């Protein structure tokens, strides 16, 4: 337990799309071997944070020059990912050290080429030309994700079910043996039984290949099954971060509490449906002070005026809320 080392350290990450600030200078750390979850509603900036690490943000995005993302490749090498030259980054880091499993539902697979070509093209894009090696590795990975390689390699994406596509995307992410895998909504739009299987598969793969995961999702119930630590994001800021038991049994931030109450508990039939009041914020017109205050049942005067800083409470617990600031 003492030898847990940080793998990725994100400091002061700020991202803007044109002139709208989407992520407001957040910090977080992902430790080696853990499953770190970033949870928040659509548009809160969680996918943007992931894309920033992998440097695949769209052209209209600009990263704050003071942002630093440190990747501790091994005991001797620590690299600032944002400062690296694009050529070097894409040759040495992207897909080789850090890769991403995209949302299967979002047409992440090219519909006009077969799965085998997905593998060969991805490998070629990263400088590997040995076709035999690529296909052998593809077979190995497809078996690891419990698909039949002989059948799947010859299919087009449209002939595959949602679960099969998601498994293929996982196999593609593991192609070059990365250490750190970012999973962007890996179970959205999948049926509930398949969701469970995918989570179970991800756990197996993590142990088998010694991976570290960063899981991005809007579904807090999903992460209960797999995460070690969770950070809750709202309006481009981290509002609470804690280990999984603290988040679920002792949630401190009102937004976290709201998220947990939105999950219907099995066997619970309440006349009053509890929801988080109000609507998600408009990023061009964010409220003053604490961004959550219009929807917070405990909002005080100071919440309307000043934005609470994020402070460390104990162990690895952090929170940004005036209620908990003494």
């Amino acid at each position, binding site marked *: 337990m003492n030898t847990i080392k940080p793998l990725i350290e994100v400091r002061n990450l700020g991202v803007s799309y044109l002139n709208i600030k989407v992520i407001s200078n957040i910090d977080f750390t992902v430790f080696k071997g853990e499953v770190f979850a970033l949870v928040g509603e659509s548009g809160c900036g969680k996918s943007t944070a992931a894309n920033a690490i992998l440097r695949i943000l769209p052209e209209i995005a600009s990263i704050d020059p003071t942002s630093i993302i440190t990747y501790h490749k091994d005991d001797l090498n620590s690299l600032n990912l944002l400062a690296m030259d694009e050529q070097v980054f894409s040759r040495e880091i992207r897909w080789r050290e850090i890769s991403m499993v995209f949302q299967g539902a979002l047409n992440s697979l090219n519909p006009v080429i077969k799965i085998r070509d997905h593998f060969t093209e991805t490998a070629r894009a990263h400088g590997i030309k040995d076709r035999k090696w690529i296909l052998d590795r593809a077979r190995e990975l497809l078996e690891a994700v419990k698909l039949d390689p002989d059948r799947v390699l010859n299919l087009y994406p449209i002939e595959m079910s949602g679960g099969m596509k998601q498994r293929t995307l996982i196999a593609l992410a593991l192609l070059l043996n990365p250490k750190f895998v970012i999973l962007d909504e890996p179970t959205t739009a999948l049926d509930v*039984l398949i969701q469970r299987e995918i989570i179970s598969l991800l756990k197996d793969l993590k142990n088998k290949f010694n991976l570290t995961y960063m899981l991005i999702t809007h579904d807090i*119930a999903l992460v209960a099954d797999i995460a070690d630590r969770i950070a809750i994001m709202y309006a481009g800021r981290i509002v609470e971060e804690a280990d999984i038991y603290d988040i679920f049994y002792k949630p401190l931030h009102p937004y976290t509490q709201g998220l947990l109450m939105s999950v219907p508990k099995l*066997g*619970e039939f309440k006349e009053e*449906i509890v929801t988080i009041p109000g609507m998600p914020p408009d990023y061009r017109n964010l409220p003053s002070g604490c961004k959550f205050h219009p929807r917070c049942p405990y909002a005080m005067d100071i919440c309307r005026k000043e934005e609470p800083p994020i402070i460390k409470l104990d162990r690895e617990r952090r929170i940004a809320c005036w209620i908990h600031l003494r």
Partner: protein
Amino acid sequence: MHAGFIYANSEVKIVDNNVIEAKNIKVVFSVRKGLLKRIKFAAVDKVSVYVPRGSVVGLIGESGSGKTTLGKVTLALIKPTNGEVLFQGKNIFKMSEKEFRYYRLNAQYIPQDPYASIHPFKKIGDILIDVLKYHRLANSYKEALEIVKDVMGKAGLNPPEKYLDKYPFQLSGGERQRASIARALILRPAYIVADEPVTMLDASLKSSIIKTLRDMLYEIHSSLLFITHEISLLQFFGRNTLINVMYLGKIVESGCINDILSEPLHPYTKALIAAIPIADPKSRETRKLILKGIAPSPLNRPGGCVLSDRCPYAMDICRKEEPILKEIESGRRVACNLYA
């Protein structure tokens, strides 16, 4: 409310307390395999569903279970190969034009995808006003506007003025779905089919949208067929909500949600409930997956019981004989040889 406005469901005759009775529905589709071969498969295989007046009925299943097809059959969007759907005691596929028109206004649809279900080139306000204008339900533009604003407010699009002139792409997924709900309920129909209405939305929004839907239904005493793969959502409608669990075109279990959640009988239902994400880290190891393999495509249904190739309790008889949906206690039905 306003002179000339039809309360579509106020004159609906209720026969046997059911608004919609779908009896022995069988829907056979044929797909092309290769150049010349055509394969037939039953998306829905001899299924009956009853929707009582003013209540919510759940249709639970994964993709390939036939739940969407069944929902569309009850809306007369798909014609079944066999079976009938009764509205006010009359088969909707054999109605006169006048009778069918009355049924048509009383049976509305809330589809799954908030992006594909609204015309992208029409403003939200215009879409709703158009419905009223087409059916001549308002005497003037001003009157139509009032009705539209009222419905939009109830659907959670507040203030309505803000949303009247917006196009769908300017709204978020949750707002679009609310617009879909407003559109389905503006005619105050007696029967609504909601097909996975919150599946594509964030988890934190689901309860809010369902609350809106529930409140609006309650106000106009409508019935709802709620189709989803997330069984826990049906809890929002009360412990006595009737649900039917479908798998590969057949209903495998039905009963009220309280009974089914506390004591699921069919192995598939047990698997579904075990798979529901629970917001409790301690439960992660205690719920094991019990079904083997993955669901076959509807073209390759196993012989005998539909679950026989994946069921951990499968016996010889399961592979040969298809179990019938039997009522084993009041209101509870299962199609499983374990309870035959």
